[in-house]
Protein backbone atom coordinates (compact mmCIF):
# COMPACT_ATOMS: atom_id res chain seq x y z
CA UNK A 1 0.00 0.00 0.00
CA UNK A 2 1.50 3.33 -1.05
CA UNK A 3 0.48 6.84 -0.05
CA UNK A 4 0.41 9.92 -2.21
CA UNK A 5 0.31 13.36 -0.60
CA UNK A 6 -1.59 16.03 -2.48
CA UNK A 7 -1.91 19.75 -1.77
CA UNK A 8 -4.92 20.77 0.35
CA UNK A 9 -6.93 21.86 -2.67
CA UNK A 10 -10.34 21.21 -1.11
CA UNK A 11 -9.60 23.13 2.07
CA UNK A 12 -8.12 26.10 0.20
CA UNK A 13 -10.98 26.18 -2.29
CA UNK A 14 -13.61 26.13 0.45
CA UNK A 15 -11.81 28.93 2.29
CA UNK A 16 -11.59 30.91 -0.95
CA UNK A 17 -15.32 30.49 -1.60
CA UNK A 18 -16.12 31.45 1.99
CA UNK A 19 -14.09 34.67 1.64
CA UNK A 20 -15.95 35.86 -1.47
CA UNK A 21 -19.27 34.93 0.13
CA UNK A 22 -18.40 37.00 3.20
CA UNK A 23 -17.56 39.90 0.87
CA UNK A 24 -20.88 39.46 -0.92
CA UNK A 25 -22.81 39.32 2.35
CA UNK A 26 -21.00 42.45 3.57
CA UNK A 27 -22.08 44.38 0.46
CA UNK A 28 -25.61 42.93 0.33
CA UNK A 29 -26.33 43.59 4.00
CA UNK A 30 -25.74 47.33 3.56
CA UNK A 31 -27.91 47.88 0.49
CA UNK A 32 -28.85 50.39 -0.79
CA UNK A 33 -26.28 52.41 1.21
CA UNK A 34 -22.82 53.02 -0.19
CA UNK A 35 -20.34 51.33 2.10
CA UNK A 36 -16.53 51.34 1.99
CA UNK A 37 -15.45 48.72 -0.52
CA UNK A 38 -12.06 48.12 1.11
CA UNK A 39 -13.16 45.06 3.15
CA UNK A 40 -14.75 43.51 0.04
CA UNK A 41 -11.59 44.18 -2.01
CA UNK A 42 -9.40 42.63 0.71
CA UNK A 43 -11.61 39.53 0.88
CA UNK A 44 -11.63 39.23 -2.91
CA UNK A 45 -7.84 39.60 -3.09
CA UNK A 46 -7.39 36.92 -0.43
CA UNK A 47 -9.81 34.62 -2.24
CA UNK A 48 -8.09 35.13 -5.61
CA UNK A 49 -4.71 34.54 -3.94
CA UNK A 50 -5.93 31.18 -2.62
CA UNK A 51 -7.08 30.30 -6.14
CA UNK A 52 -3.61 31.14 -7.44
CA UNK A 53 -1.95 29.14 -4.65
CA UNK A 54 -4.19 26.17 -5.45
CA UNK A 55 -3.38 26.29 -9.16
CA UNK A 56 0.36 26.61 -8.54
CA UNK A 57 0.36 23.82 -5.96
CA UNK A 58 -1.60 21.55 -8.29
CA UNK A 59 0.69 22.28 -11.24
CA UNK A 60 3.62 21.00 -9.17
CA UNK A 61 2.08 17.62 -8.42
CA UNK A 62 3.95 14.87 -10.17
CA UNK A 63 2.09 12.08 -11.97
CA UNK A 64 -1.27 13.75 -11.52
CA UNK A 65 -4.15 12.54 -13.71
CA UNK A 66 -4.22 15.67 -15.85
CA UNK A 67 -6.19 14.09 -18.68
CA UNK A 68 -9.02 13.24 -16.30
CA UNK A 69 -8.65 16.62 -14.56
CA UNK A 70 -9.15 18.53 -17.81
CA UNK A 71 -11.84 16.25 -19.20
CA UNK A 72 -13.98 16.80 -16.09
CA UNK A 73 -12.87 20.40 -15.55
CA UNK A 74 -13.93 21.69 -18.95
CA UNK A 75 -17.55 20.53 -18.52
CA UNK A 76 -17.70 21.75 -14.95
CA UNK A 77 -16.31 25.09 -16.12
CA UNK A 78 -19.04 25.33 -18.75
CA UNK A 79 -21.75 24.56 -16.19
CA UNK A 80 -20.46 27.05 -13.65
CA UNK A 81 -19.94 29.74 -16.31
CA UNK A 82 -23.66 29.42 -17.06
CA UNK A 83 -24.65 29.83 -13.40
CA UNK A 84 -22.15 32.70 -13.07
CA UNK A 85 -23.72 34.33 -16.11
CA UNK A 86 -27.15 34.08 -14.49
CA UNK A 87 -25.89 35.73 -11.31
CA UNK A 88 -24.19 38.49 -13.32
CA UNK A 89 -27.37 39.02 -15.33
CA UNK A 90 -29.33 39.50 -12.08
CA UNK A 91 -26.81 42.12 -10.92
CA UNK A 92 -27.01 44.02 -14.20
CA UNK A 93 -30.81 43.74 -14.26
CA UNK A 94 -30.90 45.42 -10.84
CA UNK A 95 -28.84 48.34 -12.13
CA UNK A 96 -25.68 47.54 -10.20
CA UNK A 97 -22.78 49.60 -11.51
CA UNK A 98 -19.40 51.10 -10.67
CA UNK A 99 -16.98 49.61 -8.16
CA UNK A 100 -19.51 47.29 -6.45
CA UNK A 101 -20.22 45.70 -9.85
CA UNK A 102 -16.48 45.24 -10.45
CA UNK A 103 -15.97 43.60 -7.03
CA UNK A 104 -18.93 41.27 -7.47
CA UNK A 105 -18.04 40.39 -11.08
CA UNK A 106 -14.49 39.47 -10.09
CA UNK A 107 -15.88 37.43 -7.19
CA UNK A 108 -18.11 35.55 -9.60
CA UNK A 109 -15.11 34.85 -11.84
CA UNK A 110 -13.18 33.39 -8.88
CA UNK A 111 -16.23 31.25 -8.06
CA UNK A 112 -16.67 30.10 -11.67
CA UNK A 113 -13.03 28.98 -11.86
CA UNK A 114 -12.46 27.61 -8.37
CA UNK A 115 -15.48 25.31 -8.17
CA UNK A 116 -14.65 23.48 -11.45
CA UNK A 117 -11.02 23.18 -10.30
CA UNK A 118 -12.25 21.60 -7.07
CA UNK A 119 -14.59 19.19 -8.87
CA UNK A 120 -11.91 18.18 -11.38
CA UNK A 121 -9.35 17.72 -8.59
CA UNK A 122 -11.70 15.56 -6.51
CA UNK A 123 -12.26 13.27 -9.49
CA UNK A 124 -8.66 13.20 -10.71
CA UNK A 125 -7.12 12.47 -7.32
CA UNK A 126 -8.69 9.00 -7.35
CA UNK A 127 -7.51 8.21 -10.85
CA UNK A 128 -4.77 5.63 -10.58
Amino acid at each position, binding site marked *: *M*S*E*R*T*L*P*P*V*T*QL*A*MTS*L*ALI*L*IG*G*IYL*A*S*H*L*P*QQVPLTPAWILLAASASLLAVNLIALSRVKDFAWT*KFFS*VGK*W*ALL*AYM*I*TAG*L*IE*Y*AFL*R*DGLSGDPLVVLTLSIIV*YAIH*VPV*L*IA*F*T*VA*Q*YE*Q
Partner: protein
Amino acid sequence: MTDVVTAQPPVSIAHTEPTAVSSGSPPARPDFQIVPLKGLPIVALIFVGLIIAIAANKLWPLVFLHVAFGAAWTIVDLFMGFVIGPTMGKLPPPARIEVVTRLMPKMVLIMPTVVTVTLAAGWQLGVLMGTVNSSYYNHSWIVASYIVVGFMAVIALGLLSPANIAVLTELKKPKPNPAVIQKLMKRFIFAAGFTGILQVAILVIMTRIRVG
Protein backbone atom coordinates in the same frame (compact mmCIF):
# COMPACT_ATOMS: atom_id res chain seq x y z
CA MET B 1 -3.55 19.88 6.15
CA THR B 2 -3.31 17.66 3.16
CA ASP B 3 -5.54 15.41 1.15
CA VAL B 4 -4.00 11.99 1.42
CA VAL B 5 -4.97 9.37 -1.08
CA THR B 6 -4.36 5.78 -0.18
CA ALA B 7 -3.45 4.00 -3.36
CA GLN B 8 -4.91 0.51 -3.41
CA PRO B 9 -5.17 -1.95 -6.23
CA PRO B 10 -8.58 -1.63 -7.85
CA VAL B 11 -10.76 -4.49 -6.77
CA SER B 12 -14.25 -5.58 -7.55
CA ILE B 13 -16.84 -4.56 -4.99
CA ALA B 14 -18.26 -8.07 -4.73
CA HIS B 15 -14.86 -9.52 -3.91
CA THR B 16 -14.14 -7.21 -1.01
CA GLU B 17 -17.43 -6.77 0.75
CA PRO B 18 -18.30 -9.57 3.16
CA THR B 19 -22.03 -9.25 2.51
CA ALA B 20 -21.70 -9.62 -1.22
CA VAL B 21 -22.76 -12.83 -2.87
CA SER B 22 -19.55 -14.71 -3.51
CA SER B 23 -20.82 -17.23 -6.01
CA GLY B 24 -19.56 -16.31 -9.44
CA SER B 25 -19.10 -12.96 -11.14
CA PRO B 26 -19.44 -9.55 -9.47
CA PRO B 27 -22.88 -7.92 -9.56
CA ALA B 28 -23.55 -6.13 -12.82
CA ARG B 29 -23.58 -2.37 -12.53
CA PRO B 30 -26.38 -0.69 -14.46
CA ASP B 31 -25.09 1.52 -17.22
CA PHE B 32 -25.61 5.21 -16.48
CA GLN B 33 -24.65 8.69 -17.61
CA ILE B 34 -22.82 10.87 -15.09
CA VAL B 35 -24.85 13.83 -16.36
CA PRO B 36 -28.23 12.56 -17.61
CA LEU B 37 -28.45 14.23 -21.01
CA LYS B 38 -32.22 13.77 -21.18
CA GLY B 39 -32.58 16.11 -18.21
CA LEU B 40 -30.61 18.97 -19.74
CA PRO B 41 -33.51 20.37 -21.82
CA ILE B 42 -35.63 20.50 -18.64
CA VAL B 43 -32.86 22.37 -16.82
CA ALA B 44 -32.50 24.75 -19.77
CA LEU B 45 -36.26 25.36 -19.77
CA ILE B 46 -36.22 26.14 -16.05
CA PHE B 47 -33.33 28.59 -16.49
CA VAL B 48 -35.15 30.31 -19.37
CA GLY B 49 -38.18 30.61 -17.06
CA LEU B 50 -35.94 32.11 -14.38
CA ILE B 51 -34.49 34.68 -16.79
CA ILE B 52 -37.99 35.65 -17.98
CA ALA B 53 -39.19 35.98 -14.36
CA ILE B 54 -36.25 38.20 -13.44
CA ALA B 55 -36.66 40.31 -16.59
CA ALA B 56 -40.42 40.70 -16.06
CA ASN B 57 -39.83 41.53 -12.37
CA LYS B 58 -43.40 40.59 -11.45
CA LEU B 59 -44.34 39.42 -7.98
CA TRP B 60 -46.09 36.11 -8.68
CA PRO B 61 -43.47 34.41 -10.92
CA LEU B 62 -40.70 35.36 -8.51
CA VAL B 63 -42.66 34.17 -5.46
CA PHE B 64 -43.54 30.93 -7.27
CA LEU B 65 -39.95 30.18 -8.29
CA HIS B 66 -38.48 31.14 -4.92
CA VAL B 67 -41.02 29.20 -2.85
CA ALA B 68 -41.33 26.13 -5.11
CA PHE B 69 -37.63 25.65 -5.68
CA GLY B 70 -36.73 26.68 -2.13
CA ALA B 71 -39.12 24.04 -0.80
CA ALA B 72 -37.59 21.47 -3.15
CA TRP B 73 -34.07 22.40 -1.94
CA THR B 74 -35.10 22.08 1.73
CA ILE B 75 -36.94 18.80 1.24
CA VAL B 76 -34.17 17.21 -0.83
CA ASP B 77 -31.51 18.19 1.71
CA LEU B 78 -33.52 16.93 4.68
CA PHE B 79 -34.53 13.74 2.88
CA MET B 80 -31.01 12.98 1.66
CA GLY B 81 -29.40 13.74 5.01
CA PHE B 82 -31.87 12.09 7.36
CA VAL B 83 -33.70 9.42 5.35
CA ILE B 84 -31.74 8.29 2.30
CA GLY B 85 -28.35 8.55 4.02
CA PRO B 86 -29.10 6.31 7.02
CA THR B 87 -31.08 3.92 4.78
CA MET B 88 -28.19 3.59 2.34
CA GLY B 89 -25.84 2.79 5.18
CA LYS B 90 -27.91 -0.28 6.04
CA LEU B 91 -28.21 -1.62 2.49
CA PRO B 92 -25.98 -4.44 1.23
CA PRO B 93 -23.26 -3.12 -1.10
CA PRO B 94 -24.81 -4.33 -4.38
CA ALA B 95 -28.11 -2.67 -3.50
CA ARG B 96 -26.23 0.48 -2.46
CA ILE B 97 -24.55 0.60 -5.86
CA GLU B 98 -27.90 0.16 -7.59
CA VAL B 99 -29.29 3.13 -5.65
CA VAL B 100 -26.21 5.29 -6.17
CA THR B 101 -26.06 4.74 -9.94
CA ARG B 102 -29.72 5.68 -10.28
CA LEU B 103 -29.96 8.48 -7.73
CA MET B 104 -26.70 10.38 -7.97
CA PRO B 105 -26.82 11.28 -11.70
CA LYS B 106 -30.19 12.92 -11.08
CA MET B 107 -28.70 14.86 -8.17
CA VAL B 108 -26.04 16.26 -10.53
CA LEU B 109 -28.81 18.14 -12.32
CA ILE B 110 -31.35 18.67 -9.55
CA MET B 111 -29.22 20.32 -6.87
CA PRO B 112 -27.48 23.06 -8.90
CA THR B 113 -30.81 23.86 -10.58
CA VAL B 114 -32.89 24.21 -7.40
CA VAL B 115 -30.13 26.17 -5.66
CA THR B 116 -29.59 28.61 -8.56
CA VAL B 117 -33.30 29.22 -9.10
CA THR B 118 -34.06 29.63 -5.38
CA LEU B 119 -31.27 32.13 -4.81
CA ALA B 120 -31.66 34.14 -8.03
CA ALA B 121 -35.46 34.38 -7.75
CA GLY B 122 -35.17 35.10 -4.02
CA TRP B 123 -32.73 37.93 -4.55
CA GLN B 124 -34.87 39.51 -7.26
CA LEU B 125 -37.94 39.11 -5.06
CA GLY B 126 -36.09 40.86 -2.25
CA VAL B 127 -35.16 43.73 -4.56
CA LEU B 128 -38.75 44.01 -5.80
CA MET B 129 -40.26 43.95 -2.30
CA GLY B 130 -37.52 46.02 -0.71
CA THR B 131 -36.69 43.33 1.84
CA VAL B 132 -32.99 43.39 0.90
CA ASN B 133 -32.74 47.05 1.89
CA SER B 134 -31.01 47.72 5.18
CA SER B 135 -33.99 49.91 6.19
CA TYR B 136 -36.30 46.86 6.15
CA TYR B 137 -37.62 46.30 9.67
CA ASN B 138 -36.63 42.60 9.68
CA HIS B 139 -33.20 43.27 8.20
CA SER B 140 -31.31 41.30 10.84
CA TRP B 141 -33.24 38.13 9.90
CA ILE B 142 -32.49 38.76 6.22
CA VAL B 143 -28.76 39.03 6.99
CA ALA B 144 -29.03 35.86 9.09
CA SER B 145 -30.46 34.10 6.03
CA TYR B 146 -27.50 35.33 3.93
CA ILE B 147 -25.09 33.83 6.45
CA VAL B 148 -26.85 30.46 6.65
CA VAL B 149 -27.17 30.26 2.86
CA GLY B 150 -23.48 31.20 2.61
CA PHE B 151 -22.58 28.22 4.83
CA MET B 152 -24.77 25.94 2.74
CA ALA B 153 -23.24 27.24 -0.49
CA VAL B 154 -19.68 26.55 0.70
CA ILE B 155 -20.63 23.01 1.75
CA ALA B 156 -22.57 22.33 -1.44
CA LEU B 157 -19.90 23.72 -3.74
CA GLY B 158 -16.90 22.45 -1.81
CA LEU B 159 -18.07 19.00 -0.69
CA LEU B 160 -21.38 17.89 -2.17
CA SER B 161 -20.90 18.60 -5.88
CA PRO B 162 -17.31 17.29 -6.13
CA ALA B 163 -18.18 14.13 -4.16
CA ASN B 164 -21.23 13.55 -6.34
CA ILE B 165 -19.25 13.76 -9.59
CA ALA B 166 -16.29 11.81 -8.20
CA VAL B 167 -18.37 8.86 -6.95
CA LEU B 168 -20.08 8.56 -10.33
CA THR B 169 -16.76 8.75 -12.17
CA GLU B 170 -15.39 6.02 -9.91
CA LEU B 171 -18.42 3.82 -10.57
CA LYS B 172 -17.90 4.25 -14.32
CA LYS B 173 -14.51 2.55 -14.08
CA PRO B 174 -14.28 -1.12 -15.10
CA LYS B 175 -13.19 -1.99 -11.57
CA PRO B 176 -14.34 0.68 -9.11
CA ASN B 177 -12.48 0.98 -5.84
CA PRO B 178 -15.00 0.32 -3.03
CA ALA B 179 -12.89 2.25 -0.50
CA VAL B 180 -13.05 5.36 -2.68
CA ILE B 181 -16.81 5.03 -3.21
CA GLN B 182 -17.39 4.51 0.50
CA LYS B 183 -15.25 7.53 1.41
CA LEU B 184 -16.97 9.79 -1.12
CA MET B 185 -20.48 8.63 -0.22
CA LYS B 186 -19.73 9.18 3.45
CA ARG B 187 -18.62 12.71 2.59
CA PHE B 188 -21.76 13.27 0.49
CA ILE B 189 -24.19 12.00 3.12
CA PHE B 190 -22.43 13.90 5.92
CA ALA B 191 -22.53 17.13 3.92
CA ALA B 192 -26.18 16.56 2.98
CA GLY B 193 -27.03 15.97 6.64
CA PHE B 194 -25.24 19.14 7.73
CA THR B 195 -27.00 21.22 5.08
CA GLY B 196 -30.25 19.55 6.22
CA ILE B 197 -29.64 20.97 9.70
CA LEU B 198 -28.94 24.38 8.19
CA GLN B 199 -32.18 24.08 6.21
CA VAL B 200 -34.04 23.86 9.52
CA ALA B 201 -32.40 27.19 10.43
CA ILE B 202 -33.57 28.61 7.09
CA LEU B 203 -37.12 27.45 7.82
CA VAL B 204 -37.00 29.25 11.19
CA ILE B 205 -35.65 32.44 9.58
CA MET B 206 -38.09 32.46 6.65
CA THR B 207 -41.13 31.89 8.85
CA ARG B 208 -39.91 34.63 11.23
CA ILE B 209 -39.58 37.01 8.28
CA ARG B 210 -43.05 36.06 7.01
CA VAL B 211 -44.84 36.75 10.30
CA GLY B 212 -42.79 39.89 10.97
